[in-house]
């Protein structure tokens, strides 16, 4: 290659990069101008594919309504419903929110307006704006009718593939060829799914912006998830071909771009109603108990660090940090647990159990007098403790 060719080649690169950036801006703007595809009060026609989907979803919702996994707290339900309504105004009446006691990061919204918000999600977000980011994303799926589009896409692709497979086989195509064609078809389905996730991300940002939440918080949610994934002892092996969602890194970046495009800065405080701590905080202990039972302690440790950073209900949070160390039981964890229990007791939200837990560590180290004081304190604070007789037996005379 001579010099001229090299320079020419490179200016083409630059032109390409510039047009890429222009394209990117255009798609960002498109993403932020998405309109809802269903009017408020929408119901599908009786003989449509969508009506069948609604029928199944309504049957499922009937089961869900009486499920023991639904968190029965009217305040929480109202809080989440009002949040959804703040994001979805006109569609408020079409949405029904169910807070679920399921300790994984997820929320979902079905074609008929049924929304689930899982406890594992409520544990991991640090503000109402972050909660709004996920709920807004789910509403994006709903308002752009993704469930039905996804089904129609999968159905049609599978139908076409069936004919293609039979035809290819009949034409004498080898096993390998048929497999490759089928694989390409499945790839199309997963790729469509990823595109819908991208659209829902954009829609969520738009809804946050209209409701005055800082969309940067959406990006923060994904950054937390990336950090949690990296902290995991057993890492999930993602295959980008079969992924239903774009990578977390891509989403964090795109969401940040959207937020910048809308003129927000990362540090700008977001709108908040101020009820997040009180309403979600009520259920923190339950959520942390469930989280500990999953026994993926490295991830739990990280979540606890976030909660300590968020800085509310610290007594309770430090107590569960102590519990995490106690259960993990690695080298040095006993000392860490002790420090965490002691930190818990410096705050007024520490549960009485923090005294009991500290008492056991003191007893183990042979300090009977201090242990007895801790156990007594536990029984004073929790006179109706079910383990009263047991704990009393540890108290030295």
């Amino acid at each position: 290659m001579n010099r001229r060719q090299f320079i020419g080649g490179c200016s083409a690169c630059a032109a390409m990069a510039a047009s890429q950036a222009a394209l990117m801006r255009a798609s960002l703007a498109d993403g932020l101008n998405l309109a809802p595809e269903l009017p408020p009060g929408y119901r599908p026609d009786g003989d449509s594919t969508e009506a069948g989907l609604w029928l199944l979803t309504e049957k499922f919702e009937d089961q869900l309504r009486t499920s023991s996994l639904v968190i029965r707290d009217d305040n929480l339900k109202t809080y989440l419903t009002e949040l959804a309504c703040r994001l979805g105004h006109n569609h408020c009446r079409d949405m029904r929110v169910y807070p679920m006691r399921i300790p994984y990061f997820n929320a979902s919204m079905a074609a008929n307006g049924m929304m689930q918000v899982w406890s594992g999600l409520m544990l991991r977000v640090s503000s109402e704006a972050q909660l709004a980011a996920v709920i807004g994303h789910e509403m994006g799926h709903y308002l752009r009718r993704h469930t039905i589009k996804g089904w129609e896409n999968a159905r049609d692709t599978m139908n076409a593939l069936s004919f293609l497979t039979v035809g290819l086989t009949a034409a004498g195509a080898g096993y390998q060829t048929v497999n490759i064609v089928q694989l390409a078809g499945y790839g199309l389905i997963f790729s469509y799914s990823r595109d819908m996730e991208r659209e829902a991300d954009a829609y969520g940002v738009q809804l946050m912006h209209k409701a005055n939440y800082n969309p940067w918080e959406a990006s923060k949610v994904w950054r937390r998830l990336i950090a949690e994934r990296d902290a995991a002892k057993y890492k999930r092996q993602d295959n980008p071909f079969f992924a239903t969602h774009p990578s977390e890194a891509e989403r964090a970046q795109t969401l940040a771009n959207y937020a910048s495009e809308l003129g927000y800065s990362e540090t700008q405080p977001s709108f908040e109603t101020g009820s997040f701590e009180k309403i979600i905080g009520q259920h923190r202990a339950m959520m942390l108990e469930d989280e500990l039972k999953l026994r993926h302690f490295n991830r739990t440790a990280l979540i606890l660090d976030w909660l300590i950073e968020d800085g509310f209900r610290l007594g309770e949070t430090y107590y569960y940090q102590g519990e995490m160390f106690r259960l993990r039981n690695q080298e040095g964890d006993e000392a860490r647990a002790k420090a965490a229990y002691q930190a818990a007791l410096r705050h007024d939200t520490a549960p009485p159990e923090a005294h009991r837990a500290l008492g056991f560590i003191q007893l183990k180290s042979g300090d009977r007098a201090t242990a007895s004081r801790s156990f007594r304190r536990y029984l004073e604070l929790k006179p109706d403790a079910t383990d009263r007789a047991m704990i009393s037996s540890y108290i030295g005379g």
Partner: protein
Amino acid sequence: MIGKGVRLLLACGLVLLTAACASTKDYSQINKLDKAVDERLTVLLMPLDVELSSLQASGLTEVNAEWTEEANRLMLDAIRDFKAARNINLIEFDPNAAGLDAGSEQVRLLKLNRAVGEAILIHKYGGNNELPSKRDKFDWTLGPSARVLAEAYDADYALFIFVRDSYSSAGRVAMQIFAAFLGAGMSGGVQIGYASLVDLKTGDVVWFNVLQDTGGDLRSERGAVRTVENLLEDMPQ
């Protein structure tokens, strides 16, 4: 006592490309329903669990809301006629009754029956899935809490009915013809379902009947009558 019957209801005839056959197979713990002499039996009909779908070329099924709603209505009519013919007092479970919340024993029984019905289908009818502890016997039960239904409705037995029915879409028919042309057989839509009779004093599933029918059609009145008869004909009296 354990009764066991297998019947072929209809001579199988060639319809389009596949043989249309209906077969039922039932298990029962009793010969006769338990009632005082000359007393009319009260059977509580639980909400029908019926779904109709179109069968896609690929074999996926897509639920059709209109067919499903119509089938529910037609089946209910057919069941009412069947009960009248048998002189049974039929009452229907009210899904909108007060107090049917998460803690309700009645709601739990509905959900439990679904799980038990599925277990019976898989482990008693599912070929190689037989459970060692259930071999040569049929003793499934919902447990004594079934009494809450007896008390709420003053009924002797509860009848649960489950049907999934699918019909070939135009694409599937094309696929069947295409495959047949190439010398391969490909199935069309099929109706499967079960009826389960529960003694509300004990909760025991006293009779259970599974239907498989490639020629049934719940979209017509005649078809609904045929399905209901196939499902309930062998019910102990």
